């Protein structure tokens, strides 16, 4: 019975359930001291002076660091998403003379414990010369707007456009043009564990050890080396247990430089654990985009053209992933539709707010909301059912692989799938026709019930390569050293399943090592639903090489042609003579340098592999939301919710379903509750969980989650497509469509807060 495809229990769980897994905040080093970061209280200001004397006098304070202690500070580079121009607005790890968002690091206090460090923060005195703030992206582009970066005169950090076909001509042939503006609000990943780091410099060995970096340990390893001047060989990163990532955790943040710097400066192990208020002001935010868009159709509902302008609110600086969210939006706004004529103009705009980055399904969540809303609006005007309109425009299976045409910075050749078939299956599953009738009956009774569809294509499995090494250790156990990271998703289990199948051993015999730069030399980490796709494929390659080596060793020892040997149940036996066999431990002994060299073998049973590809898989699917809205209060009740997604192949169906369900909960949060609002001075209005509302068990329905394996991806040996983001990606879209349908209004922005719905209802009544 293969492990792949089976819902085996997660290897990660028992330590987590027993409370013995060590997160970064659980790491204790001898003599460890604690850092607290003094953060800007101003959205835009010049720093006239920092007086730390009172803080330094406080008993227990080890020291206070500012930019003055860090000569030659470099800016944090982009690791991806490098749209030309963005490099002008990168961030230094600590403010030098000017601050550009509330929460920007200004000083670091180190003290014997965190209580004292926080006391000292209160005593440090920063003199600010206030500068005008700008919080609206459109306003920031105007001639009167304050300039945030000298190198970026118009606050437009970068611009680009996507253009395929002949948009102008296509619009001239349209019978209907739907023109609308849309807004998606700033919200973010907000994992339950805040960020944290422990750094320790061992002067005797000249090694800096850093616990905490995750998501892409190896990238951060390189960046810290570049910023600190220490060679990578003198830096050791260790990934602890991780309390959720969702795109935001593990990027190289200012503190990823400051805390190791403090450890080296004071020659003491330094622990920094962010509090929630800091987290809500300084971890990457996301999703804030504003659209002006036109969709052109024929009378029969055929989409002919789409033209969009998107403003991407970047916050105060460009961070490590550059323009990834907006690149994804501009590429994937077409989503599952055949849009031959497409134009999209993008402006990346700096504002006096927390910088942005990725959040699960970056850019696609926003774009799906916009496109799926436009489709419903067009359907309403053409008198077509929204499902019918989609059916006419979804890319058909015979068009696969489907090339959207040249798209800057993004690969857009869909690999495989039956999008119309998936939509039909989803509609059959929910009983769409009956639902529409139920909604109509409810409306006749004065109740506002609606059903909404959100179709999507996701992108996953980003390359360009991933590393794996598989070895057989002295006990005969199989160890996978992988360049991916864990962010809590269960990747060690999925990779163990893959390796156990390849190596014909029990999953209990497989150990997965990741996130440790002393043990894994290369890696691209866990993002963009790539871990199973890329890490799994590399693990397959390395396992196969190890299998060959085991066969060669056994063949020499047993003096039997390798073709007459069989590998099963963790041993190699002679075909037809199972008593003549060698287990992995025996083979490991044969591979020790002495016996191996004597026989002319390279010692050890250890093989590396890189899986490299310039292509990406595209999972696709459908969300269907059924809601009822209380017309008096504007409160939304989600009556039912279906997510259906084709993931190519499931390694562990239980984990896939868990990803879909967890993604949906976050998608519901983004659609209904979560928002980082700022006042006009750039002061953040959501700096605690009292103001930043995340969904609780009372807000999230049980839901239905169906993952299919209809079209394995041709781009990797496992056929997997990545399953981390399908649950969230069309939640804003489907819920907005369901609520629009329930109330007979046209929603054009998220979140769907009661006040906004009451406004729309009022406007509809006034006609």
């Amino acid at each position, binding site marked *: 019975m293969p492990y792949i495809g089976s819902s085996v229990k997660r290897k990660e769980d028992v330590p987590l*359930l*027993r*409370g013995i*897994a060590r997160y970064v*905040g659980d790491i204790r080093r001898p003599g460890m001291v604690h850092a607290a970061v003094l953060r800007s209280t101003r959205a835009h200001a010049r720093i006239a002076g920092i007086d730390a004397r009172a803080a330094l006098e406080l008993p227990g304070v080890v020291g206070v660091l500012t930019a003055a202690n860090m000569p030659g500070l470099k800016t944090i580079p982009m690791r991806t998403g490098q749209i030309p121009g963005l490099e002008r607005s990168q961030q230094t790890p600590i403010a030098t003379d000017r601050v550009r968002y509330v929460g920007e690091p200004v000083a670091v206090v180190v003290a014997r414990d965190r209580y004292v460090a926080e006391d000292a923060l209160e005593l440090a005195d920063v003199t600010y010369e206030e500068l005008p703030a700008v919080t609206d992206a459109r306003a920031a582009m105007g001639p009167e707007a304050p300039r945030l970066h000298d190198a970026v005169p118009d606050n437009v950090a970068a611009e680009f456009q996507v253009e395929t076909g002949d948009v102008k001509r296509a619009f001239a042939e349209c019978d209907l043009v739907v023109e609308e503006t849309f807004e998606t609000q700033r919200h973010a990943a907000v994992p339950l564990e805040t960020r944290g780091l422990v750094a320790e410099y061992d002067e005797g060995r000249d090694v800096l050890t850093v616990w905490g970096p995750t998501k892409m340990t190896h990238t951060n390893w390189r960046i810290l080396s570049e910023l600190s001047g220490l060679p990578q060989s003198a830096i050791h990163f260790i990934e602890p247990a991780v309390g959720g990532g969702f795109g935001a955790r593990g990027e190289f943040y200012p503190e990823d430089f400051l805390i190791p710097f403090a450890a080296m400066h004071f020659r003491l192990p330094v622990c920094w654990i962010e509090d929630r208020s800091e987290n809500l002001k300084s971890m990457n935010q996301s999703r804030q985009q504003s659209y002006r868009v036109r969709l052109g159709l024929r009378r029969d509902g055929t989409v002919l053209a789409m033209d969009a302008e998107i403003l991407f609110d970047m916050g105060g600086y460009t961070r490590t992933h550059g323009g990834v969210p907006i690149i994804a939006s501009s590429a994937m706004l077409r989503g599952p539709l055949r849009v031959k004529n497409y134009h999209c103009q993008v402006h990346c705009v700096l504002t006096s707010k927390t910088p942005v980055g990725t959040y699960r399904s970056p850019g696609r969540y926003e774009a799906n909301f916009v496109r799926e809303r436009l489709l419903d609006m067009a359907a309403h005007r053409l008198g077509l059912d929204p499902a019918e309109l989609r059916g006419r425009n979804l890319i058909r299976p015979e068009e696969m692989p489907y090339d959207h045409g040249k798209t800057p910075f993004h690969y857009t050749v869909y690999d495989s799938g039956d999008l119309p078939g998936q939509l039909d299956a989803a509609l059959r599953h929910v009983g769409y026709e009956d639902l529409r009738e139920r909604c109509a009956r409810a409306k006749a009774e004065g109740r506002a019930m609606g059903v909404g569809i959100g179709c999507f294509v996701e992108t996953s499995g980003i390359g360009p390569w991933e590393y794996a090494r598989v070895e057989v250790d002295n006990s005969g156990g199989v160890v996978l050293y992988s360049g991916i990271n864990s962010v809590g*998703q269960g990747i060690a289990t999925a990779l163990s399943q893959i390796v156990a199948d390849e190596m014909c051993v029990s999953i209990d015999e497989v150990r997965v090592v990741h996130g440790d730069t002393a043990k894994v030399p290369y890696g691209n980490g866990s993002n963009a639903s790539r871990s199973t796709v890329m890490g799994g494929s590399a693990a397959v390659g390395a396992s196969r090489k190890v299998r060959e080596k085991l066969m060669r060793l056994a063949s020499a020892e047993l003096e039997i042609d390798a073709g007459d040997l069989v590998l099963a149940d963790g041993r190699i036996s002679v075909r037809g003579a199972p008593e003549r066999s060698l287990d992995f431990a025996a083979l490991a002994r044969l591979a020790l340098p002495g016996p191996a060299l004597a026989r002319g073998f390279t010692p050890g049973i250890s093989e590396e592999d890189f899986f490299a590809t310039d292509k990406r898989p595209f999972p696709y699917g459908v969300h269907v939301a059924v809601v009822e809205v209380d017309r008096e209060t504007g409160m939304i009740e989600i009556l039912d919710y279906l997510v259906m997604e084709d993931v190519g192949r499931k390694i562990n169906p239980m984990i896939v379903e868990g990803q879909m369900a967890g993604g949906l909960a976050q998608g519901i949060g983004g659609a209904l509750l979560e928002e980082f609002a700022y006042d006009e001075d750039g002061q953040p209005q959501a700096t605690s*969980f009292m103001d930043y509302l995340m969904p609780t068990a009372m807000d999230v329905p*049980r839901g239905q989650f169906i993952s299919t394996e209809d079209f394995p991806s041709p781009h990797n040996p496992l056929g997997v497509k990545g399953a981390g983001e399908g649950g969230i990606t069309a939640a804003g879209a489907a819920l907005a469509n369901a609520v629009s349908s329930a109330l007979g209004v046209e929603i054009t922005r998220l979140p769907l807060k009661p006040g906004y719905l009451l406004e729309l209802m009022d406007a509809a009544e006034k006609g």
Partner: protein
Amino acid sequence: MSMRTIRLRINGVERAGEAEPRRLLSDFVRDDLGLTGTHVGCEHGVCGACTVLLDGDPVRSCLMFAVQADGAEIDTVEGLAPDANVLHPLQKKFQERHGLQCGFCTPGILLTARALLREHPAPDETEIRKWISGNLCRCTGYRNIVTAIREAAEEMSDGQADAPALRQD
């Protein structure tokens, strides 16, 4: 600041420590007693990750001072399983039903669920959801947590008692 001596019984073991009056119970449990299974997610009483049982009732250890727990009985996640090789039915069902992903909220939810099952040995879905609505989970979407708690309740009522770990039952 002057230090106070705090004595309490945690997971059935008498422990004592010195702490400033302002020290949070969560920090005392994690740093002074070394039980880091209790997690801190918000430090303002909303997320529920730091939930422990205080004389049997779920409390947020980030909203209490350690001195307030002087003389109390406290249960943390480390005391839930009878020993390293046996899981409590709640833990077992959380694993079977995939009721956790990153695991950061899990200790708080397990203890909340433990208190729920003491008070309502056979809760329905709504009851479970109400009880855990004070515990944020960012990973799972809650459904598998709810299922795990319901099934653990069934298993515990079948006589596969959870008693060993818990003093009072």
